[in-house]
């Protein structure tokens, strides 16, 4: 049995490598907000209130492009619906927690934190304080996101755009799924999702980000039926 502290630090160290992409992305996110002419407090407020990288950028870009607030808010909601899928998996590991603790821990569920904690949970189902791993990944991402967006807001884009550091984002997610390329069923599901995301890229409200996972999960269900 690992202690709460051990699980927390394990979560921190499991997610730490992803800071290579999270920190530049945070800086870019803060700098874009200022470049688009938004109030710095507002740009930073989003990092606490929304706390979701891609959706924050989309929100600001839509508003500055003249879209209505309704469209901007809807897009944020649609982009973030993928958290429902993360929650459906995590609920199994967090079911023993009190309702209040579930409400609090939910705020910390983000892509990379979910991915790393989910990997850990699958291998360590019997640990008693599993949720401390999720708190470790989530709070590490939270602190780095706050500091990096703040840095981008204050210093502007001191990361030269020509470096193309945005490319670190897909790389971080490649690192998350690359080991599953060993399994043919997962490869099929990945391509179903990836190809759908390109086909539906122009769908309204950035909804490709949830349409393609749903298509891919239907493919997964079909594979499971076929396997039997």
């Amino acid at each position, binding site marked *: 049995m690992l202690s709460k502290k051990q699980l927390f630090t394990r979560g921190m160290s499991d997610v730490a490598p*992803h800071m290579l992409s999270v920190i530049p992305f945070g800086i870019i996110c803060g700098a874009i907000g200022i470049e688009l002419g938004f*109030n710095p407090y507002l740009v930073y407020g989003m990092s606490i209130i929304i706390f979701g990288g891609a959706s924050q950028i989309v929100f600001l870009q839509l508003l500055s492009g003249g879209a209505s607030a309704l469209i901007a808010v809807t897009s944020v909601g649609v982009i973030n619906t993928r958290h429902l899928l993360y929650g459906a998996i995590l609920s199994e590991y967090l079911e023993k927690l009190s309702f209040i603790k579930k409400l609090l821990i939910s705020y910390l569920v983000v892509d990379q934190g979910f991915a790393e904690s989910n990997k850990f949970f699958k291998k360590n189902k019997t640990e008693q304080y599993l949720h401390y791993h999720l708190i470790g990944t989530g709070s590490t991402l939270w602190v780095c996101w706050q500091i990096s967006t703040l840095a981008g807001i204050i210093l502007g884009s001191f990361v030269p755009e020509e470096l193309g550091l*945005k490319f670190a984002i897909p790389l971080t997610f490649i690192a998350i799924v690359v080991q599953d390329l060993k399994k043919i069923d997962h490869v099929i599901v990945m391509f179903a999702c990836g190809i759908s995301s*390109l086909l539906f890229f122009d769908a309204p409200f950035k909804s490709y*980000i949830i349409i393609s996972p749903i298509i891919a999960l239907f493919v997964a269900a079909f594979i*499971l039926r076929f396997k039997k």
Partner: protein
Amino acid sequence: MTWLSIIIAGILTYFTRMTMIALVSRDMLGDRIKAVLAYVPSAVFPAIIFPAIFINDYGTFIEMNDPKIFGATVAIVVGYFSRNVIATILSGLISYWIILFF
């Protein structure tokens, strides 16, 4: 007005995170659904990966000789064999820069 929309967007986002964790109990999901949900990482993350590689800032498809394709390929190979996140990201970035700048 913008503050109000940020707060509404924040509440919506929080609900996407909280709903399944706090309001759905495990018994509500059958075994078959759980088996499908095991594919979630593979079913979700390519929707972030593919457009970030194949579609440029202007919303059009990239050329086949774009350095991002080379960078992503190197990252996949390095990641597959090294099982190391830092090595995956750095190898992808460095190989991308090599094509981009030389």
